[in-house]
């Protein structure tokens, strides 16, 4: 059995916990309960007849009150950078975290997630920005933890990328 560690990184309230909940348990809640500390969930996925045990490290959101400790990143096979499409500042936080992660554990696959796709009408980040980012070679997935749209795809994309890396 292969085990792979994946970190959920991003600003607070972008939906890291909600994405894990949706993917692992298939549930969603509108209530915001900010994470304090690290919580690890497990989920088995099958990719091309290969069973993979994913260890999903849901880390508290990065902000002025809580920083992401570098030691949490160790051993990650890949990570998600989660952005709230309706809050453009969260994209900058994502890039800060990306830089720090790469400095700490080197280059491993990551997927940039634009979450809250169901609220698209209120998004501040437009399609062109997202297209430009994918043209730059980043893997970009739009998701909604609320409706479930794109969530499975995001996790499978990253896992596939990890297996190929």
């Amino acid at each position, binding site marked *: 059995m292969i085990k792979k560690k994946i970190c959920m990184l991003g600003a*607070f309230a972008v939906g890291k916990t909600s994405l894990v909940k949706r993917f692992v348990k298939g549930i969603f809640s509108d209530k915001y309960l900010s994470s304090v500390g690290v919580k690890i969930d497990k989920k088995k996925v099958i990719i091309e007849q290969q069973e993979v045990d994913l260890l999903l*490290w849901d880390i508290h959101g990065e902000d002025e009150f809580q920083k992401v400790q570098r030691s949490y990143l160790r051993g990650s096979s890949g990570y998600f950078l989660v952005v709230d499409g309706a809050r453009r500042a969260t994209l900058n936080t994502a890039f800060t975290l990306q830089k720090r992660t790469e400095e700490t554990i080197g280059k491993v696959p990551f997927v940039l997630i634009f979450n809250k796709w169901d609220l698209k009408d209120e998004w501040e980040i437009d399609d062109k*920005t997202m297209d430009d980012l994918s043209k730059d070679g980043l893997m970009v997935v739009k998701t909604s933890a609320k409706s479930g749209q794109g969530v499975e795809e995001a996790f499978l994309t990253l896992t596939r990328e990890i297996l190929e890396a």
Partner: protein
Amino acid sequence: MNERMLADLFNHLETVVMERLDDGSFRLVGCVPNWFKRFYPEAVSRKEGLRLQDNSPFLENFCIDAESFWVGKGAGRLKSGTFIEMDPLGDEYAMEASALCSREKKILLIELLGTAYEDRKAVLQKARENVLFREYLEEEVCRRTAKIRLREEEIALRLVWATESRDKDTGAHIRRIGLYSEALAKALGWEPQQADDIRIAASMHDIGKIGIPDKILSKAGKLTSEEFEIMKKHTEIGAKILEGSDIPLLQMAKEIALGHHEKWDGSGYPRGLTGKAIPESARIVAIGDVYDALVHSRIYKPAKPEANALVTMTHGNGKHFDPKIFECFLRILPTFRIIRQEFHGTETMLYLERPQMTLFRRP
């Protein structure tokens, strides 16, 4: 104090004390609190050490840091940071581990955080909700300001168009002048707010034509020199209409109305100003106005192909036009063409589209 007492004490503190053995497992010191048994039911009966790492990926990771801390005989405590474990019933427990060295022994503490954690969590939750709410308010202010601006702009354009409707200039011309000027201002490095202002202010450049008699304004042939003297007055009439306002946009509009027929070499009107004595806004509008007049037909003249228009304008570089702005104009000519294509019509075209959300890029 004997070991039992110590263990009792730790139990009170909701802390598990363990000694790290040479095989990498952990031996419990003292009694085991009930909450810990939920995660490690075997903890009580077991004779050999517990392998914490196998059950908890978080502790597995922390043990790597702890190991180097023990080996280095670190002083004080190395803390893991808060982590959350779920018991078999699905209840969540917030904990923190720490490593410390005591009399050559490698000690690991696991502390149940309890109420202190709940308090901290409540504070952080509130703080974050506040930040979210503040962000939301700022967003809302931006959205509403943009809406108001759009309304202002439409009102201004409609009024300008009304005053100019006797002239054969069209709403599309008014719109284009604004957009050309905005493009030039941006290319010259103006602040976004100023560039926004000139888009509207530029459209008012000929507002003074309201005071010019019909027979002159609509005359198909060449104006006599007396008629031309009257026509020139549209600059000062426009300035009169717009002057004395506290609103920066209108102050700029006044400068433009008064100065858009001035020429770089001093041969323009009404004041014959030279060079930088002419406000930059007016120098910008002069270029867009001439370009637009040349490439479109007017009652008194047919349209010129762009190439010819550019030849004519190049003759005016340094005489009629500010060379620096002219150079900028040539550089962003493709933008001018796009504006012409989009607003080519002779109809009024005063309904405004919601302006494109400004793109932002990676820093």
